[in-house]
């Protein structure tokens, strides 16, 4: 039986700590210690949270979500200010609970952005879906570390992780580490990750309709991140935040 480890709120972690392997520790020190934000949902409750960190100050947040039987939580994350951004999320799911994460990280300059998730499927027939889309320009680094733990007896678990990264410059870096720890038998866990470049055929399609290369790239990146925001409360507003940041990244913004 695994249960969520308490989030390490002090002392300041080192790189030896696996969850901090790609962290910008200097920036992290400036916001340390981090207060854990707790969201505890009782049986059948529904919750949602939108995290949009687009500011100039370094930020690190720790979000702990506990879902009672049949509870549902929808978490959307957009990070993309010029500063360090780290969002760490732990979730524990009881019977029939459902967790959705849709995350978009848009990094430029020398920025480091990271999302670290740890999901604990404790009960039967709980479902989780994580869709993460990362874009890295300049010499930035963008990471997703996602662990899914399925406890003994948590049969009927259905956990999905889809992680994709797009590198806009040869000097940018993307890391993705999906991890599964399964102690139950009847479990469906899918994960996929890919790092790619924009599709040549689609770029030509846009160009053939008269759209200049920079705009075509912006539209293709909009298409790339869209899946992470589909169905979110205020989806249009979130897409607008994303497209503004993407336009900035394509113009070389930090």
């Amino acid at each position, binding site marked *: 039986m695994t249960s969520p480890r308490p989030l390490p709120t002090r002392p300041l972690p080192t790189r030896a700590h696996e969850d901090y392997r790609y962290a910008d520790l200097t920036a992290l020190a400036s916001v340390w210690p981090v207060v854990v934000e707790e969201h505890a949902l009782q049986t059948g409750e529904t919750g949602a949270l939108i995290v949009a960190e687009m500011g100039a100050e370094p930020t690190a947040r720790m979000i702990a979500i506990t879902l009672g039987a049949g509870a549902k939580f929808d978490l959307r994350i957009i990070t993309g200010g010029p500063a360090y951004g780290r969002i760490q999320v732990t979730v524990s799911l009881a019977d029939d609970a459902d967790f959705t994460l849709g995350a978009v990280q848009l990094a430029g300059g020398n920025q480091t952005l990271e999302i670290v998730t740890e999901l604990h499927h404790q009960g039967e027939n709980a479902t989780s879906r994580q869709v993460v889309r990362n874009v890295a320009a300049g010499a930035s680094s963008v990471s997703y570390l996602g662990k899914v733990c399925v406890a003994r007896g948590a049969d009927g678990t259905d956990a999905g992780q889809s992680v994709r990264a797009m590198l806009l410059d040869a000097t940018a870096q993307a890391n993705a580490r999906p991890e599964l720890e399964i102690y139950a038998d009847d479990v469906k866990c899918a994960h996929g990750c890919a790092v790619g470049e924009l*599709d*040549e*055929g*689609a770029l*030509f*399609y*846009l*160009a*053939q*309709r*008269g*759209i*200049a*290369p920079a*705009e*075509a790239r912006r*539209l*293709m990146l*909009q*298409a*790339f*991140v*869209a*899946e992470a925001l*589909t169905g979110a409360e205020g989806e249009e507003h979130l*897409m607008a935040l994303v497209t503004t940041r993407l336009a900035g990244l394509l113009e070389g913004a930090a």
Partner: protein
Amino acid sequence: MLTITNLSASVADKPILKGLSLTINAGEIHAIMGPNGAGKSTLGYTLGGRPGYEVTGGSATLNGADLLALAPHERAAAGLFLGFQYPVEIPGVSFVQFLREAANAQRRQRGEAPLSGAEFLKCAREQAALLKMDMEMLKRPVNVGFSGGEKKRAEMVQMGILNPSLAILDETDSGLDIDALRICGEGINAIMRKPDKAVLLITHYQRLLDYVKPDFVHVLAGGRIVKSGGPDLALELEEFGYEGQTV
């Protein structure tokens, strides 16, 4: 309108077009037919400027402009429209956003004022109606979840909105049922059969030509036009095949 002289092009260093010449005047509809691998699609992509399609000789002008010297988006603004055999899906970007950006990008390049939202929607509504396409479909992401026939009709709606002077339509008839074929054919006629416009249809079959009557038919084989004639040539090809042609 379009003058192609001795055009040669390679894909991955393999010569595909080998000295192709073709002249299309305003007001004309031409059809190019030919066996698989003859270079039909390559001709469209090369004129459109697709990366990887390398021109190794010859020239192509559109309304006097040197097409081959322009970037792909500039060729579009100069009046060239390619109808794709396999239109690309773009999730997260609606047809409305995509087409408004495309129309205004072209207008900007030509030094024209951009269309307002209302002007654009009016134009889009008219063209969608022409192709019997529900306006709601244009609010959806580009081509995502569209059937083969819907994608081709959407291509024609795009053509209507962008209003090109020359359309090269690559196997617009493939994947269409009889009704969709008729709707697309009528759409092509309504949008493009005008004294100041021209069409080059790339097709395997006569059936599209029943709706869009060509003025000239050409056979493309081995990277060149090997035979040209009137509409009867297409019927002859249908009956005897490419092999039955004496070149």
